[in-house]
């Protein structure tokens, strides 16, 4: 029941309709994706500032810039904002919303109104989280473990705001997942069979399954936590006869799949990047696609590896340790197949590809150090140390965030119609990569020497490595700000991008830049796979970095 005429539907989506209402009430997945992008980037900035404050405090032994209780709030906010407001919605809700329907050859997602609703639900959740900060903020860590989240009678309001905020954010995530899942099943263009789906879609599919199945459990957990707080239910609170370990089980039943809700989209993005910038079909396409589903499956049966020192039974510990090693199989399938894709590929080092290569390097380190933590006896030593902090930052930031920025640079010309400055983006990529490694490699060493995580202060012998890590964080921040500057500059001064700046054969590059309101003037018919460079005509492979009529 479209209210738009054919001419509007075939106009650039950015200019097809005008006025703030045409954005605030838009049902266009591309505009919703852009609005999401603005807010997740704002959350990234906020979470990043908290990270820099935490690192600055840790630069020197003893109090540096803030008090202990403030420090506890800073790291809690850093974690909660980065996880719930930034990383989980980052790739699916912004890039996914924009690209997924186009890659399907569809005009929109299955339920455009739910899509807009998910955006406003996200804003509501974010507002509740901000209210918690306004009330003085929580210091429970992002995991809200009981009894931390129950014991302080002063903190009632803030804990309630924060948990309700995360509760609401969960619904936004569920709605996105539901929309994608159904879209992939029902809205594929003619000829787009399951084995012709881009790997980005396969990754989004696996992610959506996890969002849909795991997030409701978080919702009910947080609801029970709220009841525990308000009524003194006695399910989680040990003082009342409840079981705090039960909370941990519930929490990680969501939050371990959530780790894969975060990393699988990163993998989905870099699969596209490796194909485009190596000019090759992804080696072992089907195995890579299935490994995403494998991660979704395995992600549901390893949650208790976060709890080896919490007081589970020996048997449960051994079982979850053994199951955890299964994660290595789909992860290994991906890493080896990407590497094999590069082999004899025609590689170009455009800025997005730098991020894909950084992903390969950083995710491999993050993944391999995971094996140390999945092994029971080494985990007893490394649990709750900086080794864990470094490990999950290599996966979450080195994996997901790097993949996100890579994807953003890759699809930026399609989304905005503007091409950015390559030199600046390359400098940003290198600064980010170097800064990241300086920050977190040193934390592996700190952790293995016994530096516990979340501590405000430390022994003097840890000071030099902490200082290295803090300076690394500054380099990292400079890289990210450089990249942000390059992108903002492109909006104002960038040249108009061509239809297919990277010479890719994937479907999203076959429509105009920026895409028309209904994505394709005519429904495309798909006759081959997304990476079939060997079957492509010369015309398809032409790289038109800039639009022909774009005057400098």
């Amino acid at each position, binding site marked *: *029941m*479209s209210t*738009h005429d054919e001419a509007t*539907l075939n106009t650039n989506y950015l200019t097809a309709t005008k006025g703030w209402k045409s954005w605030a009430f838009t049902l266009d997945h591309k505009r919703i994706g852009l609005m999401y992008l603005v807010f997740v980037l704002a959350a990234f900035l906020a979470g990043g500032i908290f990270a820099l404050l935490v690192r600055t405090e840790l630069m020197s032994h003893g109090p540096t810039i803030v008090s202990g209780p403030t420090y506890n709030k800073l790291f809690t906010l850093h974690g909660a904002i980065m996880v719930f407001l930034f990383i989980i919605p980052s790739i699916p809700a912004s890039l996914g919303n924009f690209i997924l329907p186009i890659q399907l050859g569809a*005009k*929109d997602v*299955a*339920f*455009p109104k739910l899509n807009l609703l998910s955006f406003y639900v996200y804003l509501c959740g974010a507002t509740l989280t901000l209210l918690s900060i306004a009330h003085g903020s929580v210091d429970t860590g992002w995991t809200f473990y009981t009894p931390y989240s129950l014991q302080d009678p002063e903190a009632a309001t803030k804990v309630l705001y924060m948990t309700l905020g995360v509760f609401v954010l969960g619904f936004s995530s*569920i709605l996105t997942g*539901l*929309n994608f*899942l*159904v879209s992939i*099943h*029902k*809205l594929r263009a*003619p000829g787009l069979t399951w084995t012709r789906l881009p790997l980005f879609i396969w990754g989004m599919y696996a992610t959506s399954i996890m969002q*849909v*199945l*795991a*997030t*409701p*459990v978080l*919702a*009910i957990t947080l*609801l*029970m936590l709220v*009841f*525990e707080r308000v*009524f*003194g*239910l*006695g*399910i989680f609170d040990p003082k*009342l*006869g*409840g*079981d705090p370990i*039960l909370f941990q089980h*519930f929490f990680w039943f969501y939050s371990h799949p959530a780790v894969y809700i975060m990393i699988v989209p990163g993998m989905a993005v870099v699969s596209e990047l490796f194909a485009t910038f190596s000019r090759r079909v992804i080696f072992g396409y089907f195995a890579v696609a299935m490994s995403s589903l494998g991660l979704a499956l395995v992600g549901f049966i390893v949650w208790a590896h976060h709890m080896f020192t919490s007081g589970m039974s020996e048997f449960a510990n051994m079982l979850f340790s053994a199951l955890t090693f299964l994660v290595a199989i789909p992860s290994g399938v991906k890493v080896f197949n990407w590497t094999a894709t590069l082999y004899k590929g025609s590689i170009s080092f455009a800025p997005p590809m730098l991020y894909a290569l950084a992903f390969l390097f950083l995710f491999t380190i993050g993944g391999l150090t995971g094996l140390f933590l999945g092994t029971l006896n080494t985990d007893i030593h490394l649990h709750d140390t900086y080794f864990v902090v470094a490990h999950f930052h290599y996966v979450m930031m080195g994996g997901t965030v790097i993949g996100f920025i890579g994807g953003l640079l890759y699809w930026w010309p399609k989304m905005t119609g503007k091409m950015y400055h390559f030199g600046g983006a390359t400098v940003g990529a290198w600064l980010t990569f170097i800064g990241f490694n300086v920050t977190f490699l040193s934390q592996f060493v700190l952790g293995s020497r016994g530096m516990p995580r979340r501590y405000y202060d430390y022994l003097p012998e840890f000071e030099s490595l902490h200082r290295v890590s803090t300076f690394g964080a500054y380099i990292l921040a400079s890289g990210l700000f450089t990249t942000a500057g390059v992108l903002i500059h492109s909006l104002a001064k960038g040249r108009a991008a061509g*239809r297919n700046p990277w010479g890719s054969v994937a479907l999203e590059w*076959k*429509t*105009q830049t920026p895409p028309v309101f*209904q994505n*394709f*003037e*005519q*429904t*495309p*018919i*798909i*006759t*081959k796979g997304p990476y079939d460079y060997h*079957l*492509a*005509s010369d*015309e*398809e492979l032409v790289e038109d970095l800039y639009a022909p009529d774009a005057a400098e």
Partner: protein
Amino acid sequence: MSSPSDATAHDAHPHEHPSYVQHHFDTAAQQYDTAKLGMWVFIATEILMFGGLFVAYALMKAREPDVFIAGHHYLNKEMGALNTVVLLFSSLTAALAVRSSQLGKRNETSAWLVTTILCACVFLVVKYFEYSHKIEEGLLPGRYFGHPFFDMSAAPAFHEALPSRANMFFGLYFIMTGLHGLHVLIGMGILSWVLLRNIRGEFSAEYFTAVDLGALYWHLVDLVWIYLFPLLYLIG
């Protein structure tokens, strides 16, 4: 804009859309299948959400069976049974509403929908009496246990027969039936909206998606209660 090998098709609109088919769907059948799959996925999320409560219930019941047995004697089995019958009947009338809608019988559909909504009202009225009785008796969750009307100054009461941990049982009782009751309310809202659209004449034998999905959701509400009733009322 397209290469020869990806030859674009015939016109994107090979035939005129019926007015109820949204722009981004090609056919009415595609739209119907999409909506239906969406509802099934949503039902899966609901089951996972209630699933968390059932896990908490199972674990606590396994650890403290006596508390559950002692507490459940204070639930009104007759009212619970009555509500079960009412909900089961309402699921039947919801299914009949779908059937008559598929046959294009508009007035009959309205009648079945009204019956379903009335059943939901009966359910909530019975629930109201159950809840007010519990509140009067002080059979309340957590720290309010033994304090009629949530009044902490009221004399902590007379339930010598109940172990102190019965407060946890009544907490679970209120969360589980409360969340279910909320779903009954939402279901009533959905069915009323469907009824309104039916009266307006938006549905036909070709297009009855909302009736179908509303009923599907209503069956979920029924299904959850079918588990709640024995687990809470009939464990003795």
